[in-house]
């Protein structure tokens, strides 16, 4: 794959990753948020596939498969499992309300675009020019972490951050070596599993908790 189709396909997939991140910020129903996460995972996998086809790199396509399986399918399932019996649970009162967080996300996207152009130029490839989007997705994901109260959102936020970074990795160097990528994905999966276990434990042991209730440890 090369030329225009490659560029537009890549741009589309990359854009989808960012859009999914913003969507998480926007949406309040947990079910739709998980769907957005799943979509983002698949979009990320797509980026890898497109790049793999473009570079004729089978390792990259294998990586893409891992990404899609882990981030697009396994983790969303896990998240659904964690939310479990309350699929309609909503984030009703985020720390920053939705309009404000959208404005904020616009701001961080702007910062990402403004400040990472240097790296983009340095990479010098078509994919490289999309690096700012990766940074933007990362920052938006981070903003989710900061602004939402429900425990599940923090899991989602970590995923978003991680996906943003993976995106950057794909764009700048077509991914890290396969072995490492495998390890990274495993780690992320495990981290989310651990978070899920903790979230479940929180709910079963102490009832339905917001993160605000976890403020007992301080000086």
């Amino acid at each position, binding site marked *: 794959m090369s030329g225009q189709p490659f560029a537009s396909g890549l741009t589309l997939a990359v854009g989808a990753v960012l859009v999914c991140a913003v969507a998480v910020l926007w949406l309040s129903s947990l079910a739709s948020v998980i769907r957005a996460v799943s979509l983002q995972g698949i979009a990320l996998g797509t980026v890898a596939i497109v790049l793999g086809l473009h570079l004729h790199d089978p390792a990259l396509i294998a990586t893409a498969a891992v990404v899609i399986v882990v981030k697009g399918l396994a983790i969303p399932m896990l998240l659904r499992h964690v939310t479990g019996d309350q699929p309609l649970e909503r984030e009703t009162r985020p720390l920053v309300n939705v309009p404000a967080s959208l404005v904020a996300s616009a701001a961080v996207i702007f910062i990402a675009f403004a400040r990472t152009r240097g790296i983009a130029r340095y990479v010098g490839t078509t994919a490289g020019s999309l690096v700012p989007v990766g940074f933007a997705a990362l920052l938006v994901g981070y903003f989710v972490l900061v602004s939402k109260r429900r425990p599940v959102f923090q899991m989602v936020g970590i995923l978003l951050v991680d996906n943003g*970074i993976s995106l950057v*990795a794909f764009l700048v160097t077509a991914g890290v070596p396969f072995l490492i990528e495998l390890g990274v994905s495993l780690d992320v999966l495990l*981290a989310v599993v651990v978070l899920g276990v*903790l979230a479940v434990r*929180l709910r079963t042991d102490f009832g339905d908790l917001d993160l605000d209730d976890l403020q007992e440890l301080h*000086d």
Partner: protein
Amino acid sequence: MALIGLLLLPLLGAGVLAIGRARPAAAYTAVATNCAVLVLAIGVAVREREIGPLSGAYGVLRADALSAFMALVIGAIACLASWIGVRMIAADLAEQRCSRARATTYLVLVQGFVAAMLLAVLAANVGVLWVAIEATTIVTTFLVGHRRTKGALEASWKYIVICSVGIALAFLGTVLVYLAAMHTGGHSASALDWTSLRSHASHLDPAVMRVAFALLVLGYGTKVGLVPMHSWLPDAHSQAPAPVSALMSGVLLTVAFYAILRFKAVMDVAVGPSYSRALLVTVSLLSLAFAASLLLTQRDYKRMLAYHSIEHMGLIALGAAAGIPLAIAAVLLHILGHGLAKSVLFLASGEIMAVEGTSRIDGVHALLARRPALGGIFGVGLLALLGLPPFSLFTSELLMIRAEFEVGLGWAAAAAMVAMVVIFVAVAAHARHMLFGPAAGARAGTGADTGAGAGAGDESGGIGSAAPGVSSPLVTAPLVAGLVACGLIGVFAWPLTGLLSAAAHVVAR
């Protein structure tokens, strides 16, 4: 081969534990494997001094002087912590505070934790290093939450969320390093090897490396406990079981710092030392200031120790900022000294918590009179941590300050000194409350006993009244041994100097 052995030993212990279901025999076998790690690490260090860097597992593992030194630190502290951990779990089981399954999980995870840290320092590759450090996060989250109280859960939640984000940023940094390395024409499989990074360092793009290093410092700094991503540290350390806190504070933090050190070596060649210096001095002074401020009104002694760790990580960062071989050697010495002293302190504080039932400073008093052995260990440990001779932290701090002055960072050293004095003031006040005073508890008993107990000198009073198992020589002996080691390192240098300076020259030339 030795390196693989080093990695497999703790896992072997884990296997024995899993099969033996945490029965004492199995548990002590696991401890023995940790001691074997220490011995083997010493062996590796000696061998490294003889024939240069070792490598193993098809180049995935590599041990130069720096790695060998870190493995040695890990081994030493793992011995201490797992010994006490086994005793703690035995006590928990005896009093039915936790199920056998949970006890087994705990012990197995501790072994996994040690193995992950060993992998981190032995990894030849930046990516493997990252994976290993992330693995420590995952393992320790469960360890932090071992007690299953609400506080423990809260702490482990904060721990994994903050550390995952942080470590993710480190990964971003790694990716950028990889980008720069690939642009120098590196081969994708080996581009992230330390040796290759080091040899191509002068060709790495400075602009990209700047961003990468900032992200790495921020990311690994999270696990090190450097401001601004330090916030998980007091919570996790105060909630985790004492042996886990000891391992985390004693080695995990410094293993993460080891990563920063490695990258700094590359950075200094790629960009020049002034950039990494500025960055490290900033985070270090922030950490010191933060630790000093929060120690002033601290009310919890485990949190006090945790903030103390932040302080020491700040100091280590400051030492690394100087970057000359003297400074790096001092940093490494400090890592060892701090590891020993801090793990002893955390282990002692676990004992204190077990017998006093509280981790509040104002809930503990007159330890020296009531529990002389424990109080003595705690007091001496604090002295060591505050950087008083004969403990090695004094020497290493002094050397670091010397190094700061030599590279023109004297002002930063002076500022750090101010923070350290404030910390001294704060800790002295807290320690005074915890350690000194009459054994009021004994007074509640018979009046006659008070006089006898008080007059008997500090080696006899109070032990009889302590809870069973507490202050038994089996607990105090390893703690005392840790402190003695810390003291001896501060006085007798010859076995270590060669290794230290060789390790320092790995990072700084």
